[in-house]
């Protein structure tokens, strides 16, 4: 089906999918968001994407099971860094399909500006700070019926090799 679509149609379909993913995140529909991922997915927030994982730690480096654990951590446990919980808003631009990518998936790059905020008693130290997190994101999508599933998502935070604050919510 994709083969018969024009690039602008594919870009529109993929963009709509990215907006949908962002909406699920911003609405904190965590299980629905997780359902967008394949079982063998890779969810990666590198510190240095040029270095192999065998020798360089990442901020997040989840395979399918580890992502399941991340969801369990968010939904089934109560921990200090998400008490109160984060709110997010994702702004997505520069959606660009990478035509040079091999394989059966669609590789799409986007710039995502994520705003994050923890409220609760916003007057307190460590709360009530609206944080902009500029990121460059690469998705590898595979067809799933009329829509897509995410086989991998790589999020390159602009200051990924500098001190980060709390990133325990879903980017």
């Amino acid at each position, binding site marked *: 089906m994709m083969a018969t679509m024009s690039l602008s149609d594919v870009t529109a379909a993929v963009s709509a999918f990215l907006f949908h993913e962002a909406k699920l995140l911003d609405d904190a529909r965590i299980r629905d968001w997780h359902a967008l991922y394949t079982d063998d997915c890779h969810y990666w927030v590198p510190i240095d994407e040029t270095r192999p994982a065998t*020798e360089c730690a990442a901020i997040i480096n989840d395979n399918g099971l580890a992502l399941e654990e991340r969801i369990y*951590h968010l939904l089934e446990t109560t921990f200090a860094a998400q008490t109160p919980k984060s709110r997010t808003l994702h702004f997505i631009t520069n959606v660009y399909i990478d035509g040079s990518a091999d394989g059966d998936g669609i590789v799409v790059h986007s710039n995502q500006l994520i705003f994050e905020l923890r409220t609760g008693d916003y007057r307190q130290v460590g709360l009530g700070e609206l944080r902009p997190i500029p990121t460059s994101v690469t998705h590898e999508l595979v067809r799933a019926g009329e829509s897509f599933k995410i086989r991998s998502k790589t999020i390159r935070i602009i200051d990924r090799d500098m001190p980060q604050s709390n990133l325990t919510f879903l980017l």
Partner: protein
Amino acid sequence: MKLVETQRGRNDRHSKDFSWMVDAAGKRFRIHTDAYVEEDVYKAELERIFGRTWTYVGHESEIPTPGEFITSYIGDQPVIVVRDREGTVRVLINRCVHRGAALCRETRGKTRAFICPYHGWSYDTSGKLVGITDRGIAGGYDEDFDAPEGLYRVPQVDVYRGFIFANLDPEAGPLLDHLGRARDVIDLKLNMSPVGEIRLTSRPYSVRYKGNWKFQAENIVDQYHFLFVHSPFSKLQTKFGDTTGDFGVHKPGKTHAERRNTRYHGDTYGCEQGHGLSFQPESDPDNLRHGHFAEHFAKLAEKYDEETLCRIGGKCAGAIFPNLGLIHHQIRTWRPLGPELTEVTVYPYELVGIDDELNAGMLRSQERFYGPAGYGMPDDVDIFSQNTEGLRGRAVEWLILERGIGSDVETENGDFRGLPASEACQRGLWRKWASAMKGVEQ
């Protein structure tokens, strides 16, 4: 102008005695709120603690060959840690001695010279001034110009098993005296490697938190908080165990009592030099014959007796006064940026001479707990902000650090040995702090 000029006295503008902020007598051990939040205290700490104590500035594996450098800090003072042409490790203040511009703007690199971007003065890697641009022209410098020898060399630099320490006080005693019992933690960690070496290969994690640096120094060896702050992590361990990258580091425990038994064994020390050390040897040597490191421990068993092997294969952690932490397979360092702002950097290390697979496994294990999206450290960092918020309630003056004080035993060298459920480690930090923060005789 000499390369090494004594700074002692010059910066001692703060003669105020802050030692009363540690109220310790008999079974009383309380810390005053101001010790964590006051600007005056922070300024005095920079001079009296960071200005006079051996502080960790980097690891030799970061600068293996001549010309390689990293930038670092001693308290709030910027330094370049460089291996010079002869192979000697130098610690130089990152400041051109002409008009003060920082020379080096990268965190690491390799160079033959440091050239000031402001007026082009150049220094070799030992810090020696080797060139002044347009020196002799009309309006330049006269023949009798009292040119400095070079960059300010931190007067004392020493290396213990790859750990580079520097001391701004030329009169301070030797590094080995400062490390004292903390050498045991470094030794146990490094002896996990068959050749006794580690290497900093990974990029570090770094976080900043709104809170005092001593929160981190206290927390890294606090077994007590683990069962509370990190109980969500224990829940993950119970459900996912070793399947998601723990790599056998943390034992699952189904109940609070089970987890308590895991954490609360072994010894802790509050050292005279301000270190807090925690040793939890493996209680069943049979456990070392199973798991990811079984083959590795079998090889180490040829070298060490069983007791030593259990100490190497168990857990140990240290807060080495004032700015170095060792836990898991990482070097951690903290840098004060103000009374209520601290930067923490976590360098996961590789054990030299073991299978790549084991080193990679340990990286995954650290990813899972540390880092800004991990299941442990972000919670500690959040608690540090909560501490800062809570301490604004100044109507309550004192914090209580008396847990297990009755079980502390003073050892022959002035360290106190305590039980792992106690706050013996933290008391060590504060005893040293109080003695360092006494007023200076003018």
